[in-house]
Protein backbone atom coordinates (compact mmCIF):
# COMPACT_ATOMS: atom_id res chain seq x y z
CA UNK A 1 0.00 0.00 0.00
CA UNK A 2 1.13 3.51 -0.68
CA UNK A 3 0.57 6.87 0.98
CA UNK A 4 -2.18 7.48 -1.57
CA UNK A 5 -4.60 5.05 0.12
CA UNK A 6 -8.02 6.59 0.60
CA UNK A 7 -9.39 4.76 3.63
CA UNK A 8 -13.04 5.78 3.27
CA UNK A 9 -13.08 4.76 -0.38
CA UNK A 10 -11.32 1.52 0.51
CA UNK A 11 -13.83 0.69 3.29
CA UNK A 12 -16.80 1.21 0.94
CA UNK A 13 -15.05 -0.85 -1.70
CA UNK A 14 -14.39 -3.74 0.66
CA UNK A 15 -17.95 -3.70 2.00
CA UNK A 16 -19.44 -4.12 -1.49
CA UNK A 17 -16.85 -6.69 -2.47
CA UNK A 18 -17.76 -8.69 0.64
CA UNK A 19 -21.46 -8.46 -0.23
CA UNK A 20 -20.99 -9.96 -3.68
CA UNK A 21 -18.70 -12.64 -2.31
CA UNK A 22 -21.50 -13.78 -0.02
CA UNK A 23 -23.93 -13.64 -2.95
CA UNK A 24 -21.52 -15.73 -5.00
CA UNK A 25 -21.70 -18.57 -2.49
CA UNK A 26 -25.42 -18.21 -1.76
CA UNK A 27 -26.06 -18.49 -5.50
CA UNK A 28 -25.23 -22.21 -5.40
CA UNK A 29 -28.68 -22.87 -3.97
CA UNK A 30 -30.57 -20.38 -6.13
CA UNK A 31 -33.17 -21.91 -8.49
CA UNK A 32 -31.76 -25.38 -7.79
CA UNK A 33 -32.23 -28.16 -10.26
CA UNK A 34 -33.04 -31.77 -9.31
CA UNK A 35 -29.44 -32.88 -9.51
CA UNK A 36 -26.74 -30.25 -9.46
CA UNK A 37 -24.11 -32.73 -10.64
CA UNK A 38 -24.76 -31.98 -14.31
CA UNK A 39 -23.02 -29.63 -16.73
CA UNK A 40 -26.38 -28.08 -17.67
CA UNK A 41 -26.67 -26.95 -14.06
CA UNK A 42 -23.10 -25.82 -13.31
CA UNK A 43 -22.31 -24.52 -16.79
CA UNK A 44 -25.69 -23.13 -17.90
CA UNK A 45 -27.53 -22.52 -14.62
CA UNK A 46 -30.16 -25.11 -15.60
CA UNK A 47 -31.09 -23.45 -18.95
CA UNK A 48 -33.96 -21.66 -17.27
CA UNK A 49 -33.14 -17.96 -17.02
CA UNK A 50 -36.06 -15.73 -17.88
CA UNK A 51 -36.10 -12.33 -19.55
CA UNK A 52 -34.85 -10.27 -16.60
CA UNK A 53 -32.13 -12.60 -15.38
CA UNK A 54 -30.87 -12.94 -18.95
CA UNK A 55 -30.98 -9.16 -19.34
CA UNK A 56 -28.79 -8.65 -16.29
CA UNK A 57 -26.52 -11.59 -17.08
CA UNK A 58 -25.88 -10.85 -20.76
CA UNK A 59 -25.69 -7.12 -20.06
CA UNK A 60 -23.19 -7.73 -17.29
CA UNK A 61 -21.23 -10.13 -19.43
CA UNK A 62 -21.13 -8.31 -22.77
CA UNK A 63 -20.40 -4.82 -21.38
CA UNK A 64 -17.34 -5.72 -19.33
CA UNK A 65 -15.34 -3.80 -16.74
CA UNK A 66 -12.53 -3.49 -19.19
CA UNK A 67 -14.98 -1.67 -21.46
CA UNK A 68 -15.68 0.85 -18.71
CA UNK A 69 -11.94 1.54 -18.50
CA UNK A 70 -10.87 1.13 -22.13
CA UNK A 71 -13.63 2.87 -24.10
CA UNK A 72 -13.31 6.25 -22.29
CA UNK A 73 -9.51 5.84 -22.41
CA UNK A 74 -9.72 5.44 -26.19
CA UNK A 75 -12.08 8.42 -26.56
CA UNK A 76 -9.80 10.47 -24.29
CA UNK A 77 -6.88 9.63 -26.58
CA UNK A 78 -8.41 9.65 -30.09
CA UNK A 79 -11.85 11.29 -29.88
CA UNK A 80 -14.70 10.31 -32.23
CA UNK A 81 -12.91 7.22 -33.54
CA UNK A 82 -13.25 5.60 -30.10
CA UNK A 83 -17.03 5.82 -30.49
CA UNK A 84 -17.17 2.89 -32.92
CA UNK A 85 -18.26 0.95 -29.82
CA UNK A 86 -21.64 2.66 -30.10
CA UNK A 87 -22.70 1.56 -33.62
CA UNK A 88 -21.15 -1.83 -32.77
CA UNK A 89 -23.36 -2.32 -29.73
CA UNK A 90 -26.46 -1.11 -31.59
CA UNK A 91 -26.30 -3.20 -34.77
CA UNK A 92 -25.41 -6.30 -32.78
CA UNK A 93 -29.03 -6.50 -31.52
CA UNK A 94 -30.92 -6.95 -34.80
CA UNK A 95 -28.36 -9.66 -35.51
CA UNK A 96 -29.03 -11.30 -32.13
CA UNK A 97 -32.78 -11.06 -32.72
CA UNK A 98 -32.50 -12.81 -36.07
CA UNK A 99 -29.90 -15.48 -35.31
CA UNK A 100 -29.67 -16.32 -31.61
CA UNK A 101 -33.19 -17.76 -31.10
CA UNK A 102 -32.42 -20.20 -33.90
CA UNK A 103 -29.07 -21.14 -32.39
CA UNK A 104 -30.71 -21.56 -28.97
CA UNK A 105 -33.41 -23.83 -30.39
CA UNK A 106 -30.82 -26.10 -32.03
CA UNK A 107 -28.73 -26.19 -28.83
CA UNK A 108 -31.72 -26.91 -26.63
CA UNK A 109 -33.01 -29.72 -28.84
CA UNK A 110 -29.59 -31.39 -28.99
CA UNK A 111 -28.62 -30.78 -25.35
CA UNK A 112 -25.65 -28.75 -26.59
CA UNK A 113 -23.67 -26.61 -24.17
CA UNK A 114 -21.20 -24.89 -26.52
CA UNK A 115 -21.01 -23.51 -30.05
CA UNK A 116 -18.60 -26.31 -30.93
CA UNK A 117 -21.28 -28.82 -29.81
CA UNK A 118 -23.69 -27.19 -32.25
CA UNK A 119 -21.12 -27.43 -35.05
CA UNK A 120 -20.40 -31.08 -34.29
CA UNK A 121 -24.09 -31.85 -34.16
CA UNK A 122 -24.67 -30.10 -37.46
CA UNK A 123 -21.73 -31.40 -39.49
CA UNK A 124 -20.56 -34.48 -37.58
CA UNK A 125 -16.99 -33.28 -38.04
CA UNK A 126 -14.63 -33.63 -35.08
CA UNK A 127 -12.03 -31.48 -36.87
CA UNK A 128 -14.39 -28.53 -37.39
CA UNK A 129 -15.68 -28.91 -33.83
CA UNK A 130 -12.11 -28.75 -32.51
CA UNK A 131 -11.31 -25.72 -34.66
CA UNK A 132 -14.30 -23.85 -33.24
CA UNK A 133 -13.56 -24.95 -29.67
CA UNK A 134 -9.86 -24.04 -29.78
CA UNK A 135 -10.63 -20.65 -31.32
CA UNK A 136 -13.07 -19.95 -28.50
CA UNK A 137 -10.59 -21.02 -25.84
CA UNK A 138 -7.72 -18.98 -27.26
CA UNK A 139 -9.87 -15.90 -27.89
CA UNK A 140 -11.44 -15.81 -24.44
CA UNK A 141 -8.23 -16.22 -22.40
CA UNK A 142 -6.84 -12.73 -23.05
CA UNK A 143 -10.35 -11.36 -22.51
CA UNK A 144 -10.31 -12.79 -18.96
CA UNK A 145 -6.85 -11.33 -18.48
CA UNK A 146 -8.16 -7.90 -19.48
CA UNK A 147 -10.89 -8.12 -16.84
CA UNK A 148 -8.11 -8.57 -14.31
CA UNK A 149 -6.39 -5.52 -15.83
CA UNK A 150 -9.62 -3.58 -15.27
CA UNK A 151 -9.62 -4.71 -11.65
CA UNK A 152 -5.95 -3.82 -11.27
CA UNK A 153 -6.64 -0.30 -12.54
CA UNK A 154 -9.30 0.40 -9.91
CA UNK A 155 -7.22 -1.20 -7.17
CA UNK A 156 -4.44 1.17 -8.19
CA UNK A 157 -7.00 4.01 -8.09
CA UNK A 158 -7.69 3.06 -4.48
CA UNK A 159 -3.99 3.32 -3.72
CA UNK A 160 -3.46 -0.44 -3.55
CA UNK A 161 -0.37 -1.46 -5.44
CA UNK A 162 1.40 -4.78 -5.75
CA UNK A 163 -0.13 -8.07 -6.80
CA UNK A 164 -1.56 -9.30 -3.50
CA UNK A 165 -4.96 -7.51 -3.69
CA UNK A 166 -5.48 -8.79 -7.23
CA UNK A 167 -4.60 -12.34 -6.20
CA UNK A 168 -7.03 -12.15 -3.28
CA UNK A 169 -9.86 -10.86 -5.46
CA UNK A 170 -9.09 -13.58 -7.97
CA UNK A 171 -9.18 -16.32 -5.34
CA UNK A 172 -12.59 -15.20 -4.18
CA UNK A 173 -13.83 -15.27 -7.76
CA UNK A 174 -12.33 -18.67 -8.50
CA UNK A 175 -13.77 -20.34 -5.41
CA UNK A 176 -17.35 -19.19 -5.76
CA UNK A 177 -17.38 -19.89 -9.50
CA UNK A 178 -16.15 -23.38 -8.68
CA UNK A 179 -18.91 -23.99 -6.19
CA UNK A 180 -21.86 -22.14 -7.80
CA UNK A 181 -21.15 -22.20 -11.53
CA UNK A 182 -23.12 -19.82 -13.76
CA UNK A 183 -25.60 -19.07 -10.98
CA UNK A 184 -22.95 -16.96 -9.21
CA UNK A 185 -22.33 -14.39 -11.97
CA UNK A 186 -26.06 -14.40 -12.81
CA UNK A 187 -26.94 -13.35 -9.27
CA UNK A 188 -24.01 -10.95 -8.87
CA UNK A 189 -24.88 -9.35 -12.22
CA UNK A 190 -27.96 -7.80 -10.58
CA UNK A 191 -25.78 -5.97 -8.06
CA UNK A 192 -23.08 -5.13 -10.58
CA UNK A 193 -25.38 -3.70 -13.22
CA UNK A 194 -27.42 -1.63 -10.77
CA UNK A 195 -24.20 -0.22 -9.27
CA UNK A 196 -22.79 0.63 -12.72
CA UNK A 197 -26.06 2.32 -13.73
CA UNK A 198 -25.95 4.43 -10.56
CA UNK A 199 -22.30 5.39 -11.06
CA UNK A 200 -22.72 6.33 -14.68
CA UNK A 201 -25.94 8.27 -14.22
CA UNK A 202 -24.42 10.23 -11.34
CA UNK A 203 -21.20 10.77 -13.29
CA UNK A 204 -22.86 12.06 -16.45
CA UNK A 205 -25.05 14.46 -14.48
CA UNK A 206 -22.62 15.71 -11.82
CA UNK A 207 -19.38 15.94 -13.80
CA UNK A 208 -20.69 18.12 -16.67
CA UNK A 209 -22.43 20.33 -14.07
CA UNK A 210 -19.05 20.96 -12.47
CA UNK A 211 -17.47 21.58 -15.85
CA UNK A 212 -20.09 23.98 -17.24
CA UNK A 213 -22.38 21.65 -19.19
CA UNK A 214 -21.98 19.30 -22.16
CA UNK A 215 -21.34 22.19 -24.56
CA UNK A 216 -18.31 23.16 -22.50
CA UNK A 217 -17.12 19.55 -22.26
CA UNK A 218 -17.23 19.09 -26.05
CA UNK A 219 -15.62 22.50 -26.61
CA UNK A 220 -12.75 21.69 -24.25
CA UNK A 221 -12.17 18.34 -25.96
CA UNK A 222 -12.30 20.03 -29.37
CA UNK A 223 -9.67 22.54 -28.31
CA UNK A 224 -7.41 19.81 -26.93
CA UNK A 225 -7.59 17.78 -30.17
CA UNK A 226 -6.91 20.87 -32.32
CA UNK A 227 -3.89 21.66 -30.14
CA UNK A 228 -2.61 18.15 -30.85
CA UNK A 229 -2.72 18.87 -34.59
CA UNK A 230 -6.22 17.74 -35.57
CA UNK A 231 -5.38 14.21 -36.79
CA UNK A 232 -8.35 13.13 -34.68
CA UNK A 233 -11.19 15.17 -33.26
CA UNK A 234 -14.86 15.45 -32.35
CA UNK A 235 -15.85 14.07 -35.73
CA UNK A 236 -14.06 11.57 -37.94
CA UNK A 237 -11.54 12.71 -40.51
CA UNK A 238 -12.29 11.14 -43.93
CA UNK A 239 -9.61 8.46 -43.55
CA UNK A 240 -11.19 7.24 -40.29
CA UNK A 241 -14.68 6.59 -41.65
CA UNK A 242 -14.09 3.18 -43.17
CA UNK A 243 -12.05 1.86 -40.22
CA UNK A 244 -14.82 3.14 -37.93
CA UNK A 245 -17.62 1.43 -39.85
CA UNK A 246 -15.77 -1.84 -40.50
CA UNK A 247 -14.61 -2.13 -36.88
CA UNK A 248 -18.23 -1.62 -35.79
CA UNK A 249 -19.56 -4.27 -38.20
CA UNK A 250 -16.78 -6.79 -37.55
CA UNK A 251 -17.09 -6.40 -33.79
CA UNK A 252 -20.87 -6.81 -33.98
CA UNK A 253 -20.56 -10.06 -35.95
CA UNK A 254 -17.84 -11.33 -33.58
CA UNK A 255 -19.45 -10.21 -30.30
CA UNK A 256 -21.77 -13.17 -29.90
CA UNK A 257 -19.39 -15.82 -31.22
CA UNK A 258 -17.39 -15.68 -27.96
CA UNK A 259 -17.85 -18.49 -25.42
CA UNK A 260 -19.00 -16.11 -22.67
CA UNK A 261 -21.72 -14.35 -24.66
CA UNK A 262 -22.94 -17.68 -26.09
CA UNK A 263 -23.04 -19.14 -22.58
CA UNK A 264 -25.49 -16.36 -21.69
CA UNK A 265 -27.51 -17.21 -24.81
CA UNK A 266 -27.63 -20.98 -24.15
CA UNK A 267 -28.52 -20.41 -20.48
CA UNK A 268 -31.75 -18.59 -21.26
CA UNK A 269 -35.03 -20.38 -20.83
CA UNK A 270 -36.56 -19.93 -24.30
CA UNK A 271 -36.01 -18.50 -27.76
CA UNK A 272 -38.47 -15.72 -26.99
CA UNK A 273 -36.41 -14.67 -23.93
CA UNK A 274 -33.62 -13.92 -26.42
CA UNK A 275 -35.91 -11.98 -28.75
CA UNK A 276 -37.17 -9.84 -25.89
CA UNK A 277 -33.60 -9.26 -24.78
CA UNK A 278 -32.61 -8.09 -28.24
CA UNK A 279 -35.23 -5.39 -27.73
CA UNK A 280 -34.32 -4.57 -24.10
CA UNK A 281 -30.53 -4.94 -24.01
CA UNK A 282 -29.83 -1.74 -26.00
CA UNK A 283 -30.47 0.13 -22.73
CA UNK A 284 -26.91 -0.86 -21.89
CA UNK A 285 -25.72 0.74 -25.11
CA UNK A 286 -27.02 4.12 -23.93
CA UNK A 287 -25.00 3.50 -20.78
CA UNK A 288 -21.92 2.61 -22.84
CA UNK A 289 -22.26 5.78 -24.92
CA UNK A 290 -22.39 7.83 -21.74
CA UNK A 291 -19.39 5.96 -20.37
CA UNK A 292 -17.51 6.78 -23.58
CA UNK A 293 -18.24 10.48 -22.99
CA UNK A 294 -16.27 10.22 -19.73
CA UNK A 295 -13.24 10.42 -22.04
CA UNK A 296 -14.17 13.99 -23.02
CA UNK A 297 -15.03 14.85 -19.42
CA UNK A 298 -11.53 13.71 -18.47
CA UNK A 299 -10.07 16.12 -21.01
CA UNK A 300 -12.34 18.97 -19.85
CA UNK A 301 -11.51 18.31 -16.20
CA UNK A 302 -7.81 18.54 -17.04
CA UNK A 303 -7.05 14.96 -15.99
CA UNK A 304 -3.43 14.12 -16.77
CA UNK A 305 -2.40 10.48 -16.62
CA UNK A 306 0.69 8.52 -17.58
CA UNK A 307 -1.42 5.70 -19.03
CA UNK A 308 -4.84 6.42 -20.58
CA UNK A 309 -6.31 3.40 -18.75
CA UNK A 310 -5.91 5.31 -15.46
CA UNK A 311 -8.12 8.11 -16.81
CA UNK A 312 -11.48 6.95 -15.41
CA UNK A 313 -10.29 6.19 -11.84
CA UNK A 314 -8.34 9.44 -11.77
CA UNK A 315 -11.37 11.40 -12.97
CA UNK A 316 -13.61 9.77 -10.34
CA UNK A 317 -11.10 10.46 -7.61
CA UNK A 318 -10.84 14.08 -8.70
CA UNK A 319 -14.55 14.88 -8.85
CA UNK A 320 -16.28 12.46 -6.44
CA UNK A 321 -16.22 12.45 -2.62
CA UNK A 322 -14.28 9.51 -1.18
CA UNK A 323 -17.26 7.32 -0.36
CA UNK A 324 -18.69 7.60 -3.88
CA UNK A 325 -15.30 7.06 -5.47
CA UNK A 326 -15.10 3.85 -3.41
CA UNK A 327 -18.59 2.87 -4.58
CA UNK A 328 -17.72 3.46 -8.22
CA UNK A 329 -14.45 1.52 -7.98
CA UNK A 330 -16.36 -1.34 -6.39
CA UNK A 331 -18.85 -1.19 -9.28
CA UNK A 332 -16.04 -1.50 -11.82
CA UNK A 333 -14.24 -4.27 -9.92
CA UNK A 334 -17.46 -6.26 -9.50
CA UNK A 335 -18.07 -5.46 -13.14
CA UNK A 336 -14.86 -7.41 -13.83
CA UNK A 337 -15.93 -10.40 -11.74
CA UNK A 338 -19.14 -11.13 -13.65
CA UNK A 339 -17.64 -11.41 -17.15
CA UNK A 340 -14.48 -13.10 -15.82
CA UNK A 341 -16.66 -15.77 -14.20
CA UNK A 342 -18.83 -16.31 -17.27
CA UNK A 343 -15.76 -16.37 -19.53
CA UNK A 344 -14.06 -19.01 -17.44
CA UNK A 345 -17.28 -21.05 -17.39
CA UNK A 346 -17.65 -20.72 -21.18
CA UNK A 347 -14.05 -21.84 -21.64
CA UNK A 348 -14.52 -24.70 -19.17
CA UNK A 349 -17.63 -25.87 -21.03
CA UNK A 350 -15.68 -25.89 -24.31
CA UNK A 351 -12.80 -27.82 -22.79
CA UNK A 352 -15.10 -30.36 -21.17
CA UNK A 353 -17.42 -31.01 -24.09
CA UNK A 354 -15.18 -30.58 -27.09
CA UNK A 355 -11.75 -31.66 -25.82
CA UNK A 356 -12.24 -33.90 -22.78
CA UNK A 357 -15.39 -35.70 -23.91
CA UNK A 358 -14.29 -35.76 -27.54
CA UNK A 359 -10.74 -37.01 -27.06
CA UNK A 360 -10.03 -38.13 -23.49
CA UNK A 361 -13.13 -39.80 -22.08
CA UNK A 362 -16.07 -40.16 -24.50
CA UNK A 363 -17.99 -42.14 -21.85
CA UNK A 364 -17.93 -39.30 -19.31
CA UNK A 365 -21.21 -38.97 -17.38
CA UNK A 366 -23.03 -35.62 -16.96
CA UNK A 367 -21.78 -35.56 -13.35
CA UNK A 368 -18.25 -36.25 -14.57
CA UNK A 369 -18.57 -33.39 -17.07
CA UNK A 370 -19.52 -30.98 -14.30
CA UNK A 371 -16.52 -32.11 -12.24
CA UNK A 372 -14.10 -31.66 -15.15
CA UNK A 373 -15.56 -28.25 -16.00
CA UNK A 374 -15.17 -27.01 -12.42
CA UNK A 375 -11.47 -27.81 -12.45
CA UNK A 376 -11.04 -26.44 -15.98
CA UNK A 377 -12.56 -23.11 -14.88
CA UNK A 378 -9.92 -22.90 -12.14
CA UNK A 379 -7.08 -23.65 -14.56
CA UNK A 380 -8.34 -21.07 -17.06
CA UNK A 381 -8.49 -18.33 -14.43
CA UNK A 382 -5.08 -19.26 -13.09
CA UNK A 383 -3.69 -18.95 -16.61
CA UNK A 384 -5.20 -15.49 -16.99
CA UNK A 385 -3.81 -14.39 -13.62
CA UNK A 386 -0.33 -15.64 -14.48
CA UNK A 387 -0.57 -13.90 -17.84
CA UNK A 388 -1.23 -10.58 -16.06
CA UNK A 389 1.41 -11.04 -13.35
CA UNK A 390 4.21 -12.47 -15.48
CA UNK A 391 3.72 -10.86 -18.88
CA UNK A 392 3.40 -7.18 -19.79
CA UNK A 393 -0.21 -5.94 -20.00
CA UNK A 394 0.33 -5.05 -23.65
CA UNK A 395 0.62 -8.77 -24.39
CA UNK A 396 -2.96 -9.38 -23.24
CA UNK A 397 -4.18 -6.32 -25.17
CA UNK A 398 -2.48 -7.46 -28.39
CA UNK A 399 -3.73 -11.00 -27.93
CA UNK A 400 -7.26 -9.76 -27.35
CA UNK A 401 -7.10 -7.80 -30.61
CA UNK A 402 -6.03 -10.96 -32.43
CA UNK A 403 -8.64 -12.93 -30.48
CA UNK A 404 -11.43 -10.75 -31.86
CA UNK A 405 -10.22 -11.42 -35.39
CA UNK A 406 -9.89 -15.15 -34.71
CA UNK A 407 -13.31 -15.61 -33.13
CA UNK A 408 -14.89 -13.91 -36.14
CA UNK A 409 -13.53 -16.75 -38.27
CA UNK A 410 -15.86 -19.19 -36.49
CA UNK A 411 -18.89 -17.24 -37.74
CA UNK A 412 -19.46 -19.26 -40.95
CA UNK A 413 -19.19 -22.63 -39.15
CA UNK A 414 -21.56 -21.58 -36.35
CA UNK A 415 -24.12 -19.48 -38.23
CA UNK A 416 -24.35 -20.68 -41.85
CA UNK A 417 -25.47 -24.19 -40.90
CA UNK A 418 -28.53 -22.74 -39.17
CA UNK A 419 -29.84 -21.61 -42.56
CA UNK A 420 -28.43 -23.80 -45.30
CA UNK A 421 -27.14 -27.29 -46.07
CA UNK A 422 -24.94 -26.02 -48.82
CA UNK A 423 -21.63 -25.58 -46.97
CA UNK A 424 -19.59 -28.68 -46.17
CA UNK A 425 -17.51 -29.32 -43.05
CA UNK A 426 -14.22 -29.68 -44.90
CA UNK A 427 -14.92 -26.53 -46.89
CA UNK A 428 -15.73 -24.56 -43.71
CA UNK A 429 -12.55 -25.86 -42.11
CA UNK A 430 -10.51 -24.71 -45.12
CA UNK A 431 -12.16 -21.29 -44.91
CA UNK A 432 -11.40 -21.12 -41.19
CA UNK A 433 -7.72 -21.95 -41.80
CA UNK A 434 -7.41 -19.30 -44.51
CA UNK A 435 -9.16 -16.70 -42.33
CA UNK A 436 -7.05 -17.38 -39.24
CA UNK A 437 -3.70 -17.68 -41.00
CA UNK A 438 -4.30 -14.84 -43.44
CA UNK A 439 -5.74 -12.48 -40.85
CA UNK A 440 -2.96 -13.15 -38.35
CA UNK A 441 -0.33 -12.72 -41.03
CA UNK A 442 -1.70 -9.30 -42.04
CA UNK A 443 -2.06 -8.09 -38.44
CA UNK A 444 1.47 -9.15 -37.56
CA UNK A 445 2.97 -7.65 -40.74
CA UNK A 446 1.15 -4.37 -40.00
CA UNK A 447 2.66 -4.23 -36.52
CA UNK A 448 -0.47 -5.40 -34.63
CA UNK A 449 -2.79 -2.80 -36.08
CA UNK A 450 -6.46 -3.82 -36.32
CA UNK A 451 -7.01 -2.18 -39.71
CA UNK A 452 -5.29 -2.79 -43.03
CA UNK A 453 -5.08 -0.47 -46.04
CA UNK A 454 -5.82 -1.90 -49.46
CA UNK A 455 -4.78 0.11 -52.50
CA UNK A 456 -6.92 -0.32 -55.63
CA UNK A 457 -5.65 2.00 -58.32
CA UNK A 458 -5.75 5.50 -56.85
CA UNK A 459 -8.14 4.55 -54.05
CA UNK A 460 -7.22 3.51 -50.53
CA UNK A 461 -9.56 1.41 -48.44
CA UNK A 462 -8.72 0.93 -44.78
CA UNK A 463 -10.69 -1.99 -43.39
CA UNK A 464 -10.84 -3.99 -40.15
CA UNK A 465 -8.64 -7.05 -40.71
CA UNK A 466 -11.19 -9.37 -39.10
CA UNK A 467 -13.67 -8.54 -41.86
CA UNK A 468 -11.08 -9.01 -44.61
CA UNK A 469 -10.20 -12.40 -43.17
CA UNK A 470 -13.89 -13.28 -42.86
CA UNK A 471 -14.44 -12.40 -46.52
CA UNK A 472 -11.55 -14.67 -47.55
CA UNK A 473 -12.89 -17.35 -45.21
CA UNK A 474 -16.37 -17.25 -46.77
CA UNK A 475 -15.03 -17.22 -50.34
CA UNK A 476 -12.83 -20.24 -49.68
CA UNK A 477 -15.63 -22.10 -47.88
CA UNK A 478 -18.01 -21.30 -50.72
CA UNK A 479 -15.66 -22.29 -53.54
CA UNK A 480 -14.57 -25.45 -51.74
CA UNK A 481 -18.19 -26.42 -51.10
CA UNK A 482 -18.86 -26.03 -54.82
CA UNK A 483 -15.88 -28.00 -56.10
CA UNK A 484 -15.22 -30.72 -53.51
CA UNK A 485 -17.05 -34.00 -54.13
CA UNK A 486 -20.13 -34.36 -52.03
CA UNK A 487 -18.87 -37.05 -49.66
CA UNK A 488 -15.67 -35.10 -49.01
CA UNK A 489 -17.26 -31.75 -48.35
CA UNK A 490 -20.08 -33.05 -46.21
CA UNK A 491 -17.98 -35.10 -43.83
CA UNK A 492 -19.45 -38.18 -42.13
CA UNK A 493 -23.19 -38.31 -41.66
CA UNK A 494 -24.54 -36.98 -38.39
CA UNK A 495 -25.34 -39.79 -35.99
Amino acid at each position, binding site marked *: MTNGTDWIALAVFIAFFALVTILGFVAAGWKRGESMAHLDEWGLGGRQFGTWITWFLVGGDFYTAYTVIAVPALVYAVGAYGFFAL*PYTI*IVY*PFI*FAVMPKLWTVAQAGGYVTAADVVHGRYGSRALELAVALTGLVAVMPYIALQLVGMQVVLRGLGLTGELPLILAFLVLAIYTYSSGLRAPALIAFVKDIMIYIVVIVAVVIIPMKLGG*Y*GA*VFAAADKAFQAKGGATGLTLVPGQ*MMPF*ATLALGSALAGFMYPHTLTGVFASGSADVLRKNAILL*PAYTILLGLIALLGYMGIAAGVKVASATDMVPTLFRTVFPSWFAGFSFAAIAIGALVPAAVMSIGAANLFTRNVWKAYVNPAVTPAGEAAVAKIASMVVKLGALLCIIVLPTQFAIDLQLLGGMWILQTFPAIVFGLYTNWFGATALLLGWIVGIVGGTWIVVLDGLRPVHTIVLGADHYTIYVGLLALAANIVVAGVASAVLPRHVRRGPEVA
Partner: protein
Amino acid sequence: MWALLLLPFIGLLWVPFYDFREPSVLGFPFFYWYQFAWVPITSFLTWLVWRGMRR
Protein backbone atom coordinates in the same frame (compact mmCIF):
# COMPACT_ATOMS: atom_id res chain seq x y z
CA MET B 1 -41.16 -6.87 -41.84
CA TRP B 2 -37.72 -8.43 -41.28
CA ALA B 3 -36.21 -5.82 -43.62
CA LEU B 4 -36.73 -3.27 -40.83
CA LEU B 5 -33.80 -4.91 -39.05
CA LEU B 6 -31.49 -3.75 -41.85
CA LEU B 7 -32.21 -0.06 -41.24
CA PRO B 8 -29.82 0.33 -38.26
CA PHE B 9 -27.02 -1.18 -40.35
CA ILE B 10 -27.61 1.36 -43.11
CA GLY B 11 -28.10 4.28 -40.75
CA LEU B 12 -24.96 3.61 -38.73
CA LEU B 13 -22.49 1.98 -41.10
CA TRP B 14 -22.78 4.67 -43.78
CA VAL B 15 -20.75 7.17 -41.76
CA PRO B 16 -21.09 10.15 -44.20
CA PHE B 17 -24.74 10.35 -43.05
CA TYR B 18 -23.68 11.71 -39.70
CA ASP B 19 -20.05 12.71 -39.57
CA PHE B 20 -20.62 16.40 -38.81
CA ARG B 21 -21.21 18.72 -35.88
CA GLU B 22 -24.33 20.74 -36.64
CA PRO B 23 -27.13 20.83 -35.71
CA SER B 24 -26.09 20.18 -32.14
CA VAL B 25 -28.64 19.39 -29.44
CA LEU B 26 -28.13 20.26 -25.76
CA GLY B 27 -24.43 20.73 -26.44
CA PHE B 28 -24.11 17.33 -28.19
CA PRO B 29 -22.71 17.58 -31.74
CA PHE B 30 -24.83 15.82 -34.39
CA PHE B 31 -22.33 12.91 -34.64
CA TYR B 32 -23.12 11.97 -31.05
CA TRP B 33 -26.84 12.49 -30.64
CA TYR B 34 -27.52 10.84 -34.01
CA GLN B 35 -25.84 7.65 -32.80
CA PHE B 36 -27.57 7.81 -29.44
CA ALA B 37 -30.92 8.28 -31.23
CA TRP B 38 -30.42 5.00 -33.10
CA VAL B 39 -30.53 3.08 -29.83
CA PRO B 40 -34.27 3.57 -29.12
CA ILE B 41 -35.04 3.50 -32.85
CA THR B 42 -33.37 0.09 -33.17
CA SER B 43 -35.24 -1.21 -30.13
CA PHE B 44 -38.50 0.05 -31.59
CA LEU B 45 -37.89 -1.50 -35.03
CA THR B 46 -36.96 -4.81 -33.41
CA TRP B 47 -40.09 -4.66 -31.29
CA LEU B 48 -42.19 -4.09 -34.43
CA VAL B 49 -40.72 -7.20 -36.03
CA TRP B 50 -41.28 -9.17 -32.83
CA ARG B 51 -44.89 -8.03 -32.61
CA GLY B 52 -45.37 -8.95 -36.27
CA MET B 53 -44.06 -12.46 -35.57
CA ARG B 54 -46.53 -13.11 -32.78
CA ARG B 55 -49.58 -12.28 -34.84
